[in-house]
């Protein structure tokens, strides 16, 4: 089927993204211009934590969706690639001035340079933007290179064996990064902190007072650029090859698709973006350590993908926001003991939030198997409505 390509959709999408980014900047900075903003918009509000985390997780979820939803490769190694990205970013960006302090247990770092310092230091615009950007891209590249090597043996495996083998690699990676012998590079079991974070992007005046907040805008910009690249990839001929592999490997091979090449490509690209989201994760939590990158992180991201709908990019993004907002913000009240009048509400105490939350997830997994969006995208919904209206 040959379709006349219309650029209209792309322009609308671009417009929506720009408006969205503008709204983020506005929300973030409202507190600077007005004195009595609602509590939600204060810079310390949970809203911005949720938004930042959403940006980080959305990229991770979309990169997993590229693999699971669009290529049909069920990989559980996402946390491992995020760990690679986080460590690469942190190792390359610890400012020279902080190195001895961070690597105190190993008498200084073996990496004798720091990317932001090469461009003039974290405090200058060029040093911050170029250094951080370069480190993030390198984080992705390192993850992709590892993925290439891991893919050599692993991608021959089918469904659940692939899942368990990639999971195994993620665990191996975690052990390697905690190895004391690699301490001068990875800081052993200690965390690497004092790295440039999102907060460094807030523009301050000479007096040290923040004049423009960009700490939520930056992760969103990064995530949106990366997700846009993934969307373009999925809509290209490579993307169609991925989908063909997902539907039926044997038929795809018969149609002349090089299975090994495309699987490896999908795996490497997915890992590249997982690495970037790992770097963003390090920026979000202000440090890099092996502890958070367990299989549970992979499971969390997988559940987000499932809730959003396997094979839907917008679904993954929406689900990430709902997931993060529910777990970090909206369901918080379940964790605190509440007394209404004389009545002590039963069951409410720390931990209950996650129980409710996991029950909701089980309900989605069991009864709404297609997730929020199924395999549709957000624009598809509007298209469908328009067509019905035309009838």
């Amino acid at each position, binding site marked *: 089927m040959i379709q006349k390509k219309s650029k209209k959709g792309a322009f609308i999408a671009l417009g929506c993204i720009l408006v969205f980014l503008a709204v983020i900047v506005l929300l973030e900075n409202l507190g600077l211009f007005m004195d009595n903003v609602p509590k939600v918009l204060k810079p310390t509000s949970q809203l911005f934590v949720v938004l930042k985390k959403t940006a980080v997780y959305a990229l991770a979820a979309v990169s997993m969706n590229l693999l699971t939803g669009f290529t049909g490769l069920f990989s559980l190694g996402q946390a491992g690639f995020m760990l690679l990205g986080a460590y690469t970013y942190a190792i390359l960006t610890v400012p020279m001035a902080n190195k001895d302090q961070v690597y105190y247990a190993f008498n200084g770092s073996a990496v004798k340079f720091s990317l932001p310092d090469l461009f003039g230091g974290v405090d200058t615009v060029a040093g911050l933007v170029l250094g951080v950007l370069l480190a993030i891209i390198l984080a992705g590249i390192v993850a992709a290179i590892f993925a290439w090597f891991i893919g050599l043996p692993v991608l*021959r*495996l089918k469904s*659940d064996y692939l899942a*368990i083998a990639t999971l*195994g690699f993620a665990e191996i990676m975690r052990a390697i990064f905690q190895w*004391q012998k690699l301490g001068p590079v990875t800081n052993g079991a200690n965390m690497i902190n004092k790295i440039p974070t999102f907060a460094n992007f807030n523009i301050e005046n000479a007096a040290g007072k923040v004049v423009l907040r960009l700490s939520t805008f930056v992760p969103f910009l990064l995530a949106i650029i990366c997700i846009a690249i993934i969307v373009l990839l999925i809509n290209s001929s490579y993307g169609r090859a991925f989908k063909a592999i997902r539907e039926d490997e044997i038929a795809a091979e018969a149609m002349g698709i090089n299975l090994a090449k495309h699987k490896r490509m999908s795996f490497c690209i997915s890992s590249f973006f997982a690495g970037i989201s790992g770097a963003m994760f390090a920026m979000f939590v202000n440090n890099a350590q092996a502890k958070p990158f367990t299989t*549970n992180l992979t499971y969390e991201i997988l559940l987000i993908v499932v809730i959003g709908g396997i094979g839907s990019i917008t679904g993954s993004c929406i689900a990430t926001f709902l997931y993060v907002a529910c777990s970090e913000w909206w369901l918080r009240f379940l964790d605190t003991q509440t007394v209404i009048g004389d009545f002590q509400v039963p069951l409410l105490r720390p*931990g209950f939030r996650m129980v409710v939350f996991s029950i909701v*997830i089980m309900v989605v*997994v069991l009864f709404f198997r297609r997730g929020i969006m199924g395999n549709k995208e957000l624009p598809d919904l509007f298209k469908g409505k328009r067509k019905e209206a035309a009838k």
Partner: protein
Amino acid sequence: MEYIISILLSGISVGGQYALIAIGYTMVYGILRLINFAHGDVFMVAGLMGIYLSASMPLYVAIPMVIVLTAILAFFIERAAYKPLRSAPRMSVMISAIGVSYLLQNMATYITGAQPMTYPTIPGLSDTVQIAGTPTKWAVLLTPVLVAVLVVALTVLINKTKVGMAMRAVSKDFETAQLMGIKINTVISVTFVIGSVLAAVGSILYFTNYSAVTPTIGALPGLKAFVAAVFGGIGSIPGAVIGAFIIGICETVIKGLPSAWDVSVFSDAFTFALLVIVLVFKPTGLFGEKATDKV
């Protein structure tokens, strides 16, 4: 010498505990082709039940209760989370298993208040004996014996009884077995119950050795037991047991290597490296049957 003996002893006991978990994995995989990610967490819940039940009743009641309740739990998990997805793609069932694991861990965190709980000492099991000059717990010695007895009993069950025959039929061919009048749901439930009973026994032995029970403690032994099942050839019970013993011994040996080499962080990684090597070079494992892909 004494050091070597003590390492070998604890390796055999860890291996035995993995074996008890691995049998559950391998049986479920043999029949449903499902990696039951929640199995490790069932093991953890059995540990918690042991703590709570032994606090309120004498041990000779508590231990059988733990085993029975674990079996009931596994039965309900199967009915609630896996049965509705019987005709769904395999990935959905696996995701459901991950969801159950997430749920069990969060429930455990809620109930325990995220505090590590201490497993009660079981008289007899927790007592120490001297073996070749090294103090050892009775549980360590009992584990391999118990594993051997249970495996023999299980093999008899599978090879001689009607239920066992049904299990073998279902694992050979799901649909044909159904056409032959085998009640698939009963067979699957029985499989889950047997697997969880063994996991409960394993938890009693395991936590007598490592007495702290945390909500996430089941994940790693669970995964390792699964690796053992793959190593031995998934679907094969003797394979799973031998795989588990090999993994348990290798792991404790790596942990016991001189600290100057500093390789003890790799004791977990080793298991997974073994998994990858097995999957790449002999995906059917030591005793597995060769699977053929039909177009």
